[in-house]
């Protein structure tokens, strides 16, 4: 009966997309709700806070709604070194993580492709750090790098380090910690790209007079670029805002403070909410600008 009702002239084709469109919309609702509640609302609140002025009552930690654009200038001026350091550290750590991760990802995705056991073991090793809290792992490094650790004592004994030199609190320690924490985020997307790489294309490159270096440069690397881009974004963005590794409680010192640490200090210790908010907004804006420039450039393959 239903078929008869529809009839041959029934505009099935035009009805169907509307129907699926509506279903898709319903399915999207939880996501939209989530985004509205947990992203847009805090963002709005953050921008609002970043423009507040100190309360007329003079009570510390109290602020009134205002349009104090000067907060941004103050934040920029006051914390320029930390902002610069954040992006420098993020850039350096991302580059090092890429250099370390690419060979690992290549080995798992290409070399070990036909050895499922080895491949599974290596992938597990890459993911293994996630089994332990990042805080604990970073703290473990603090122990290893601490002044009286066996590592430093050994290095000092063999003369590789000066007697009164140290690691904790240096740029090296912070960048090391950042690279260490974010390597899985770099390795996994690159692995996913290389795992799908059609090795016949590499053979075709060799067949067309390209040596192994050229084959890598012109074929393997460009074809793994989607993974490289996701990997670099997944490391660069969180590293820019990271406040754990560089904090004094972990591998950093006041000399290595990044934006995250400043935001944390302003929010939780100084209770300077407008400056902390302005810094957060600035960080977000900078990341959006940098990332969109990067993605656009890599999309046109100029990145090579």
């Amino acid at each position, binding site marked *: 009966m239903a078929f008869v009702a529809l009839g041959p002239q029934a505009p099935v084709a035009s009805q169907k997309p509307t129907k699926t469109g509506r279903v898709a919309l319903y399915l999207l609702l939880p996501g939209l709700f989530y985004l509205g509640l947990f992203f847009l609302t805090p963002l709005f609140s953050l921008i609002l806070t970043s423009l507040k002025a100190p309360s007329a009552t003079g009570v510390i930690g109290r602020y009134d709604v205002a349009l104090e654009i000067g907060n941004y200038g103050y934040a920029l001026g006051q914390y320029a070194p930390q902002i610069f350091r954040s992006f420098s550290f993020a850039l350096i750590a991302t580059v090092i993580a890429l250099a370390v991760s690419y060979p690992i990802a290549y080995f798992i995705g290409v070399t070990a492709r036909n050895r499922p056991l080895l491949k599974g073991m290596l992938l597990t090793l890459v993911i293994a750090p996630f089994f332990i809290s990042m805080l604990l792992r970073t703290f473990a490094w603090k122990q290893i790098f601490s002044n009286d650790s066996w590592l430093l004592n050994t290095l000092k004994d063999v003369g590789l380090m000066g007697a009164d030199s140290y690691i904790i609190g240096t740029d090296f320690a912070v960048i090391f910690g950042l690279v260490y924490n974010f390597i899985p985020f770099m390795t996994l997307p690159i692995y996913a790209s290389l795992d799908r790489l*059609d090795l*016949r*294309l590499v*053979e*075709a*490159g*060799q*067949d*067309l*007079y*390209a*040596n192994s270096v*050229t084959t890598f440069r*012109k*074929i393997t690397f*460009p*074809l793994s670029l989607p993974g490289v881009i996701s990997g670099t974004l997944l490391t660069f963005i969180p590293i820019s805002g990271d406040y754990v590794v560089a904090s004094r409680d972990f591998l950093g010192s006041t000399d290595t403070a990044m934006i995250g640490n400043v935001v944390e200090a302003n929010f939780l210790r100084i209770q300077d909410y407008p400056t902390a908010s302005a810094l957060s907004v600035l960080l977000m804006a900078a990341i959006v600008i940098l990332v969109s420039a990067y993605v656009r450039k890599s999309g046109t*393959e100029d990145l090579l």
Partner: protein
Amino acid sequence: MSADFVARGQDLELESIRKEFPGFVAVDDLDLKIPAGEFFALLGPSGCGKTTTLRMIAGLETPSAGHILIGGNDVTDQKPHHRPVNTVFQNYALFPHMSVEENVAFGLKQRKVDNPQQRAQAALEMVELQHLAARRPQQLSGGQQQRVALARALVNRPALLLLDEPLGALDLKLRRQMQIELKAIQMEVGLTFLHVTHDQEEAMDMADTVAVMNHGHIEQMGAPEALYDRPKTAFVAKFLGQSNLFVGEVAEADDAKLAINFKGNRLAAPAARVEKTKGKVAIGVRPEKTSFHPEKPASDPAVNTLGPGTITDIRFTGVSNQYQIEIPDVGEITVFAQNVGKSPVVELGAEVWVSWKVEHSFGLADLPTGEEEVAE
């Protein structure tokens, strides 16, 4: 650094090439010589070692033993990018991140040839795709991709062009068209072509010489007509076209002919067309050389006759019909008859005698094992 830009093809020589993989021998001491400028087909079922052979020539696989010579130079230890060889891969292996023109110019740029773009354009013109030069490979149809792959290989003017079942993914009509184009291009450029395929019609249609490969070695090699007319092994007889094979003890053998006793029937073959004259011998005939008769034909020493039998199956294939005739105590015989008149010539279930001229019989060097028919 790499080989010269040659104007013509060069000859290829394989000297006792062997390739062992863990647990099996893919190519078993293969000797082969392909003269310059020839269109050579390596034909065989999947797993016969033909693709491994091709990959060793391209340098993508290292032989376990033996030598590969191109134009007299030993290239066995050369890396693929140093060999004057280009390959049209089975699935084309076009670079998805490059335009059609960049794909075609890739090899030229690696060898630092002058005017790569111009040459790539010319190569695309040859395959009539110059208007698609700016497209990405995945925007092209299968046939177009195939032609890009061909242009990408040919533009380098390799001493030897390897074709790894390049037409396998195309539909029948396009495949026929590409076969004609490929052959025309080969004649035009005068390069040596080595074509690997499991399609016997394709091999016979295009190649000057066909080598039939099985279990890592060449069973028989020669011009397509010669191979078809006189297969020497049961495998070739069954793989290259179809054959009716009859096995029996040799009943008489002299300078003119050989006859076997096949279940009480005397089947003869000319002495010049048999490989073996003692013991059990397999005698065969092609189905289209065979005919059937509603009456028992008069006895004639120049004709082999079997029957009577019953038509058990008729398959219409367009230009001809394929008839299966079941002869009691003898077995099944296949006969092709052209549909020049009324089709079918006889009705299903009719009683017929089968006969063919003795001169069309061939005697094999081995006996059928029954496994040949599983071949593709």
